[in-house]
């Protein structure tokens, strides 16, 4: 596919260049009286007008190609509000693409249609209040709709209330990895501050706070499906951003303050692995990796690791230093039973300290 795209690009480039060279040749000898040679003449106007039309075709082709082939990059949603988000996203995208398609045609079509000719008279047309009113008021109405829809969604997502069975998790960011701290049975996170960091207490839990004793610190983020998760985000060094694209979730992690976000995961890792979308994606990536591995082995280097199972992930999305590009955490969404099972295998803060 890419080869095809590259070919098309090269062909269009060379057509453009060929046309240019033609203009160049043709424009050389013709110099009529009183005409400055570096000002566009009739021939320049005609040729550029044609190029305008060709460019419109290129632009439509590019947009079509991208939407056709690349819109599959858009990952499936896996949280309760993903549907809401995607609806708003696609409605907005639809609206702007309609405007885009209309205005681009107008620009390039007018450029083609009204190209300069000796003797053509331009229309002296300086004002039209009605017309201007229309294209002020139409965007006002459309944007009002989008704003209202957007604000309701925003309020739904951000102004959440803690439900009775909510899981409270602290996402703890440090260069260049993530940790998760579960509130434990009392569902209350213990006090914490970087000033308590010492030895095995790497996230700085206040040992004198009873709430913190049953907190559980983990390297992987496990979430039970269908239960509200409330994230409290804390950073120990610089700004980070917790970005979970599949859950349509993102919040910056700011040293010195606790930020928060919430969503309810709706699709387990097992389930999403079985969807056509993920299967297809894994096939594509698998093919790419096998080819790459072959190349690497041929040049005497180690092959790439296998990538067999899809997992959700949490990415760092705020520049945080050298290894920013490799700061992520695996997210596992599982059933309530599996989650409880997993939780039992983890150590509470009290146990961790006691062990030491």
């Amino acid at each position, binding site marked *: 596919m890419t080869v095809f795209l590259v070919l098309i*690009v090269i062909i269009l480039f060379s057509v453009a260049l060929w046309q240019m060279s033609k203009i160049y040749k043709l424009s050389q000898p013709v110099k009529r009286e009183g005409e400055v040679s570096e000002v566009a003449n009739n021939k320049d106007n005609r040729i550029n007008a044609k190029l305008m039309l060709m460019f419109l075709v290129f632009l439509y082709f*590019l947009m079509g190609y991208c939407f056709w082939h690349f819109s599959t990059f858009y990952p499936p949603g896996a949280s309760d509000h993903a549907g809401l988000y995607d609806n*708003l996203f696609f409605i907005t995208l639809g609206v702007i693409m309609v405007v885009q398609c209309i205005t681009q045609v107008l620009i390039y079509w007018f450029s083609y249609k009204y190209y300069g000719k000796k003797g053509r*008279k*331009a229309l002296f047309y300086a*004002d039209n209040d009605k017309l201007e009113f229309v294209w002020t008021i139409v965007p006002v109405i459309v944007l009002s709709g989008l704003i209202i829809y957007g604000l309701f969604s925003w309020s739904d997502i951000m102004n959440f209330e803690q439900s009775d069975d909510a899981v409270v998790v602290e996402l703890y960011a440090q260069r260049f990895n993530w940790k998760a701290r579960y509130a434990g049975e009392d569902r209350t996170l213990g006090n914490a501050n970087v000033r308590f960091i010492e030895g095995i207490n790497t996230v700085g839990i206040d040992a004198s706070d009873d709430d913190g004793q049953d907190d559980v610190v983990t390297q992987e983020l496990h979430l039970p499906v269908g239960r509200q998760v409330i994230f409290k985000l804390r950073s120990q060094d610089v700004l980070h951003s917790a970005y979970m694209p599949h859950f349509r979730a993102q919040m910056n992690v700011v040293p010195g303050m606790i930020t928060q976000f919430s969503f309810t995961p709706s699709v387990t890792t097992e389930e999403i692995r079985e969807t056509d979308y993920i299967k297809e994606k894994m096939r594509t990536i698998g093919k790419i990796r096998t080819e790459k591995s072959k190349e690497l082995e041929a040049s005497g280097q180690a092959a790439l690791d296998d990538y067999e199972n899809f997992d959700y992930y949490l990415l760092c999305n705020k520049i945080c*230093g050298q290894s920013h590009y490799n700061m992520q955490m695996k997210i596992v969404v599982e059933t309530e039973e599996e989650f409880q099972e997993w939780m039992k295998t983890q150590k509470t803060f009290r146990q961790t300290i006691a062990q030491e």
Partner: protein
Amino acid sequence: MSAHAPALDHGHDDHAHHHKQTFISKYIFSTDHKMISRQYLVTGLLMGIVGIAMSLLFRMQLAWPGEKFVIFELLLGKWAPDGVMDPSMYLSLVTIHGTIMVFFVLTAGLSGTFSNLLIPLQIGARDMASGFLNMISYWLFFISSVIMLASLFVESGPAAAGWTIYPPLSALPESIPAAGMGMTLWLVSLAIFIASSLMGSLNYIVTVINLRTKGMSMTRLPLTIWTFFVTAIIGVVSFPVLLSAALLLIMDRSFGTSFFLSDIYIGGEVLHNSGGSPVLFEHLFWFLGHPEVYIVLLPALGITSEIIATNSRKPIFGYRAMVASILAIAFLSTIVWGHHMFVSGMNPFLGSVFTFTTLLIAIPSAVKAFNYITTLWKGNLQFNPAMLFSIGLVSTFITGGLTGIILGDSTLDINVHDTYFVVAHFHLVMGIVGLYGLFAGVYHWFPKIFEGKMMNKNLGYVHFWVTALGSYAVFFPMHFIGMAGLPRRYYSNTAFPYFDDLADVNITITVAALVTGAVQLVFLYNFIHSMFYGKVAGKNPWRSNTLEWTTEQKHIHGNWEGAIPHVYRWPYDYSKLNEDEDDYVIAGQDFTPQDVPLQENEEEMNH
């Protein structure tokens, strides 16, 4: 109405006739606005070469991560051991590319060049209100450019915290070595830059208000002057806030204060700082940072307005609406900064407010876009290179602007914030639009900058068409890798397998970028060649209405040999017919310059 100072003019005239200029007073410490404009242009272009070259380097890294390139070894030296780019160098390149392009090329290079050149020429003034201040403004800009370039050679590396230099990353050398000396130089350079920008802006404002020639009322100003004027006002309002942010950051870095720092554990120890907030820095930064977008955009739009009207041989459609949009955009631009911070941890209610104001700004922008399109309608379009770039500008302005509706919506921003979607958006709407404005301006006013010489149009055509194809090919697909969730500022997208299927698109983007970058050499060649050997045109090659085309071909101090022309009409009387509608106002000539009095057989319009 328009203030006019005859006494001052005489002073200038005498000066022009009796004073001999030395090389230094003519080319280096010149107080003449035309020379200062040239200095800005050349410095801006040189910075542009550095900035664009950097982007090509990191695009190569993104397309072929970890690959060896001789060019890396050559240009980056110890930052590319064995020809593989170092991750911290990648971050530095991204940072300095952003800084140079936004501030040095598109703010100083664009505004500095054309405000200086056109404000006195188009309003009919002998020079800027203060030539001396103008000279200092340029030289401060020059010093800040030199410091910025010097920071590239610092041992611990140039600044690498992104062009937004969010602390704590930019405040703590423990986090990245580049936050040391490199960051200090960055801050010093920017502080000087701000001083330069303020002096320039104040000068533009005073000049436009006070030195308009007789008859040049505000509603007869060309739209270029309107945009330069309003841009200068935005600059005066917002740049000082960036200076305060930079000063507080300098204090945090060097004097142990805690404006932006709190509760930090780094390098195995807890820092003493507490009580500060990085979010405060974000507010201060974006209070400039967002208006900055319009500081880049508005002059480009003003240049386009002028060029589209001239080359369509039609008045710009809806002059008053255009002015109103400029003012509306300027006002709104100062109250939308929070849309860069929807997920920064600020109160969600604030997010709602900023969504509202942000989407409002789409309205004046839409009005402008429609007015340009209507100006093309039923015109007699002269496809000079400047016109092509202007049309390209309108096209990319719409393409890039529309995705702003997605990013400006707090809800939608959640999932595309800081991904390549953002990169695609602002490169189209600010980067490419700004550059097209710069190119259009250079092609159009080259004869004014270089004493009647013109640039080669055929090379101009090649430059435009390849650039137009290339920049869409670079930035349009980028939206989609952003929608896939690919974060920006990643040194490599192959550290974990999930994004492997985006590698092909990244290669396509890089190839397009390299081609587009290469074709800029055609422009450079054309620029330099025409500077010396360009064909000399007549006084008014584009048959334009504005006053700059009535000035002397040769640059003289004071611009007009004799008296300053008076103005009797607005600048857009193109193809205006006489009352009998059987010929143009001036028979056989489809334009009526501003200094032509109302003709007998002519209907008087509003302007």
